[in-house]
């Protein structure tokens, strides 16, 4: 029961981890990308479109499908889709100096619209009665476990039974943490986010760092959308199912104090909180609805507590949300 609860929490937490790691990378460059929810939708639907085409090309026959291709095609499509969204965002905010909040929100509208529209179109193509697309074959390729996980009892189930996207998410978070804190590129990126004018004076190409960080961040976040469809929902896309996880990922950035390694713990904790209502015994359906607000309440408490303590290392990057124009100093 407890093992199952933790595994479920991890599964629910992975999209949030992808999303918040992506947003941390973006925010470190000084971009508050509120388009993440839309980007995650686009990441999900691009992956779905890719694997849909591949499944059909193989005649919907699992024997004809190559395991490697079945995994790599959705991954590449998902990354490509979200990078395009990231490029739109950076073009508007970096090159055209547009307001970041407004651009992000418009991008979210666009992204969710795109996701639902393409999803509905695919459902039309399949002509199925249900309002969803099932990519169960692709999903089985993604869900391949480590071979010895079953034989190790609870330990195996807790640490080794997850699909590879879970480990990928953790690896990306750790690598991000390393790059940000221990390498020159990371130092440059952080300085761009803290004070673009100073970074510019030091010879760092502010625009390039912002473009690249936003696109990488979007790609990582988009994978979160893909993970939701292929792993959590076992390959079933239905419109609006992804819900508000994108916003939660953005909140998680603050929860994690802009540290990717904290985001790992934070996202699994959020996964547990999202799911707690199903595991606390003796709750009626109506009380469950109230318990679903737990992750949001916790986020608010964290927001308030971090703002009250005002520790210097727990603050957002100073240049966050401001566009940089060299001649305006």
């Amino acid at each position, binding site marked *: 029961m407890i093992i199952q609860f933790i595994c479920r929490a991890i599964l629910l937490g992975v999209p949030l981890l992808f999303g918040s790691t992506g947003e941390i990378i973006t925010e470190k460059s000084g971009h*508050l990308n*509120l388009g993440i929810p839309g980007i995650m939708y686009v990441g999900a639907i691009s992956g779905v479109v890719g694997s849909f085409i591949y499944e059909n090309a193989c005649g919907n026959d699992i024997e004809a499908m190559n395991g490697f291709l079945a995994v790599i095609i959705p991954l590449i499509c998902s990354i490509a889709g979200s990078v395009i969204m990231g490029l*739109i965002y950076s073009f*508007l905010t970096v*090159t*055209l*100096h*547009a*307001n970041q*909040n*407004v*651009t992000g*929100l*418009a*991008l*979210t*509208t*666009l*992204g*969710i*619209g*795109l*996701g*639902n*529209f393409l*999803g*509905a*179109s695919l459902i*039309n193509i399949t002509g199925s009665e249900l309002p969803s697309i099932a990519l169960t074959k692709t999903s089985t390729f993604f869900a391949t476990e480590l071979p010895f996980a079953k034989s190790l009892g609870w330990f195996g189930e807790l640490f080794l039974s997850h699909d590879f996207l879970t480990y990928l998410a953790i690896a990306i978070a750790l690598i991000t943490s390393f790059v940000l804190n221990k390498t020159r590129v990371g130092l440059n990126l952080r300085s761009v986010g803290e004070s673009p004018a100073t970074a510019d004076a030091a010879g760092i190409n502010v625009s390039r760092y912002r473009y690249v960080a936003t696109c990488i961040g979007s790609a990582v976040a988009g994978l979160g959308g893909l993970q939701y469809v292929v792993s959590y929902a076992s390959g079933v896309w239905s*419109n609006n199912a992804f819900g*508000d996880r994108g*916003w939660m990922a*953005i*909140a998680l950035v*603050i929860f994690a104090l802009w540290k990717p390694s904290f985001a790992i713990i934070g996202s699994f904790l959020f996964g547990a909180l999202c799911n707690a209502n199903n595991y606390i015994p003796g709750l009626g*359906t*109506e*009380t469950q*609805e*109230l318990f*679903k*607000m737990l992750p*949001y*309440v916790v*986020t*608010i408490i964290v*927001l*308030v507590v971090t*703002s*009250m303590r*005002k520790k210097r290392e727990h603050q*957002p990057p100073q240049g966050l949300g401001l566009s940089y*124009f060299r*001649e*305006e100093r």
Partner: protein
Amino acid sequence: MADVSAAKKQREPLIHVVKRDELPGWHAWLIRIATVFIGMILVGFLSMLVTEKGFFETYEIMFKGVFGKLFEGYTTMFWKYLQEIAILLCLALALTPAFKMKFWNCGAEGQALMGGLASIFCMIQFGEKLPYGVLIAVIALTSILAGAIWGIIPAVFKALFNTNETLFTLMMNYIATQIIAYYVYIEGGGSNVINPVSAGNFPKVGTNDYFVNIVTVAVITVLMYVYLKYSKQGYEISVVGESRNTAKYIGINVKKVIIRTMAISGALCGVTGMLLVAGKDHSINTNLVGGQGFTAILMSWLGQFNPFVMVVMTAIVVFLRLGVSKVADASLLNSSYSEIMVGIVILMLVGCEFFIHYSIRFRHKNKEVGA
């Protein structure tokens, strides 16, 4: 020495961006109108590709769908168009004082939901007990209060601890959504639906259901314009928005202004919730506002804090949303198609601000004479 020669060889970049002085008003508007026009052509062109209808047929469907009857089953009357504008405009107006203060209120959705909750609660609890006039007054008061409270909570923390308001207000949306889900479950007896309540509805004028909503929002528009432009409080809001320190030095109580402005912002969102519940749906569900709280943010920003410009902007966006969804209906596409088109046009409008505030200079062809 090597550095100097390298610097001499480096050529001036081809394109050079310069900040403009203030453009004359009509010039800026010409750019915005041109952008909307290009956006409309793009929408028509994309629709032509997707729906395989003719280029002009698309516009025909849009205009007929919004302004008149197209064919049975797919009619959007002009009044419905005005009603949709009224709701979006009311939310945008509510957000404007907060934005002018540089307070990113992303919680319009939640504040409107709480206002709606207060309305439906009063309609159900007091519907049979109070005379009609008193009931409407009670509904109005409680919805305004509920919205205001939902707006004040993040404002207090912003004023006291400088807590990030963008995320705080965002989280308040989801808490409100869950409270509504809880209430709907209890009141609907587990069916997740509350049947339309007949008590406490706004009166019809003639055959028109939405007249009260539209007039209310029209009045709010004028009041908001006066409030922001001519009142002392409106002036305080703009000073706090420009620079908190300046505000402090000239003796404005910044904390008080933040909390007061958010109370107004939340209260107006609460009014929108009331208009939706008492004036339109007569029921409530978690999708009452339907994401318009976020569109309203864009409307408020595109309106440049001017309520009358916001009227134009919301009219354009609602026209697109309704019109394109008619096009989608007519060719059996998913209704999300209109969200995409609205998103594209808004992104273009956001991008066109660049051409208003900056100008592009190309590299001079002739070599420098002196040196």
